[in-house]
């Protein structure tokens, strides 16, 4: 116990400046009401995704249970968001939808970063023809509206949640290349990079030890904003019928089904839509707040 305490104490001393920096970020963010709202929405989203199964009342409805006697019930105390065309509890399905959205969002962002960040750094640092070729390829991907390209890819691979995630990852990485390449270009000329070069650091070390850590702020900001957007895009694909397929409780697919019964049963499409709105809004506000703190000069 004592040794843990001493390690903790040492860690605190060693990381004093980082801890101070972090405290400053927390303080500045807590002064902006919109950032606090964003952070709370995101926190709630993560908590619900984590403890979802405890919150739901009809676990069997999350997958394909059918209770025809319960169908099209309007919101009530038994079914807070009403029931759908086969009597499933929409509340339980919306809650479990957070998990699916979280998985989709995280996977897309990690794959996109995993491809985009190294490619961007390599293009920016090496420059020359490598840069030219990599950026040309990136431009091709950016030259077509993302949703359309994703539709084309899912169209070829076949509908389904896995293919939708794959398609969105393919569409998403070029954004990171652009961001990181631009940042690397300016970092390359910094004196600390020159210093590292002059003491004989390898390219690998310069790229990953010196340039990458200095790119983290814009990457974190973009990732936070993209989390919301990726969830939104996955819902878009679910809605047009090429993403998650029923009975998977994905919000976009639920709205797509609910739309067929819209006129008499408004609740079916309304609640999943609100869930998307709140989630995306949360990530956007959080991203905005992070940007204001971490990278105050940039605006877009």
């Amino acid at each position, binding site marked *: 116990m004592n040794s843990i305490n001493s390690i903790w104490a040492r860690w605190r001393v060693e990381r004093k400046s980082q801890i101070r920096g972090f405290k400053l970020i927390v303080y500045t963010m807590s002064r902006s009401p*919109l950032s606090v709202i964003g952070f709370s929405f995101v926190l709630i989203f993560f908590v619900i995704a984590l403890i979802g199964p405890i919150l739901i009342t009809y676990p069997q409805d999350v997958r394909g249970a059918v209770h025809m006697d319960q169908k099209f019930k309007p919101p009530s105390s038994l079914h807070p968001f009403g029931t759908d065309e086969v009597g499933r509890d929409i509340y339980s399905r919306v809650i479990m939808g957070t998990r699916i959205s979280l998985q989709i969002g995280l996977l897309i962002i990690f794959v996109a970063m995993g491809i985009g960040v190294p490619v961007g750094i390599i293009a920016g640092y090496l420059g020359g023809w490598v840069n030219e070729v990599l950026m*040309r*390829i990136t*431009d*091709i*991907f950016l*030259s*077509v*509206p*993302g*949703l*359309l*390209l994703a*539709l*084309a*890819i*899912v*169209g*070829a*691979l*076949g*509908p389904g949640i896995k293919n939708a995630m794959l398609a969105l990852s393919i569409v998403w990485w070029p954004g990171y290349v652009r961001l990181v390449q631009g940042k690397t270009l300016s970092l390359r000329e910094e004196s600390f990079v020159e210093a590292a070069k002059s003491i004989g650091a390898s390219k690998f070390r310069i790229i990953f030890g010196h340039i990458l850590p200095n790119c983290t702020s814009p990457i974190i900001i973009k990732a936070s904003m993209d989390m*919301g957007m990726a969830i*939104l895009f996955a*819902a*878009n694909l679910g*809605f*047009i*019928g*090429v993403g998650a397929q029923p009975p998977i409780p994905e919000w*976009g697919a639920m*709205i797509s089904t609910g*739309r067929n019964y*819209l*006129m008499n049963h*408004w609740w079916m*499409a*309304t609640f*999943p*839509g609100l869930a*998307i*709105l709140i989630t*995306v*809004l949360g990530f*956007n*506000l959080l991203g*905005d707040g992070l940007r204001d703190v971490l990278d105050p000069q940039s*605006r*877009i």
Partner: protein
Amino acid sequence: MKRYFLKRFLSIIITLIGLSVIVFMVSRVAPGDPAKLAAGPDATEEMVQIIQKEFRLDDPLPVQYISYMRGLLRGDFGRSIRTRHQVQEDIRLFLPATFELVFFSIAFAIAFGILFGILSAVYKDTWIDHGARVFSVTGVAVPMFWLGIMLQLLLAAKFHLLPIGGRLDTMILPPTTITRFFLMDSLITGNWVVFKNALSHIFLPAFVLSFPALASITRINRAEMLEVLHKDFILNERAQGISERLIIAKYALKNALIPTLTMIGLRYGWMLGGTILVETVFDWPGIGNYAVGAAVYSDFQPVMAVTIILGLNFMIANLFVDLGYGVLDPRVRYE
């Protein structure tokens, strides 16, 4: 200037070729067999093979690609494997509807986005500003298709204020074809009945399609206006006694518009992608709807065509944006 155009033109061609390669590879590397899908579930092996021969799906990939590109140069996008229609014929039919919708939406988003941005900056920290800011933050987070459905429910189904979908009422004949834009054609021919009907049909889908763009244009224009209004040259103009209205509408706005223009270009691309959703929700007979219909059946020729056409459109829009910088800022040089 000439050199600049030549360079841009070349880069568009190269990007288009790259795009066609990517789209083509995606379509051919895919696991699903389009011939099998088109032949239907009860088809025999021979029937599938006949379709494969007919669409030359058994040729080696490079050969297929070259013959596809040859077709493209002649404006031939191939045939849909499902409907057997020539894709370019379908596109010719559906494209005007999409462009009418997109142009209407982007015009709406630009006009009102800039206006809201100015108002929000000028009346900073009043209820106008608060309203515009709440809108600009939520606007980008709203799922477009859901907004469309909710407005359909409210304005069309509940209050019967606007039609629920389509381009015209079924009882109304389209106007004489001139531009293929119903609004324009009915205006030119003075056909007010059709004009009113077309306007009432386009309003909801255009509003929904423009919503995220409107929000982000408002937001960036507000931020830029706020920054410009604090610059020294504005102070100087105020000191000279130039009216506030002129300062805002002319001197400040022109400077604030440069980043706003970047955003407009970016959002235009999103809008082209958004047609897929909005056209599906509002049953709008455009190429977005067409692409979705084809993609669901892995009918790839139409999807490729739509991707390439909208991609080209986006590239041209970006060129216009870059030229726009020169109009707004005389320091910009094209080389």
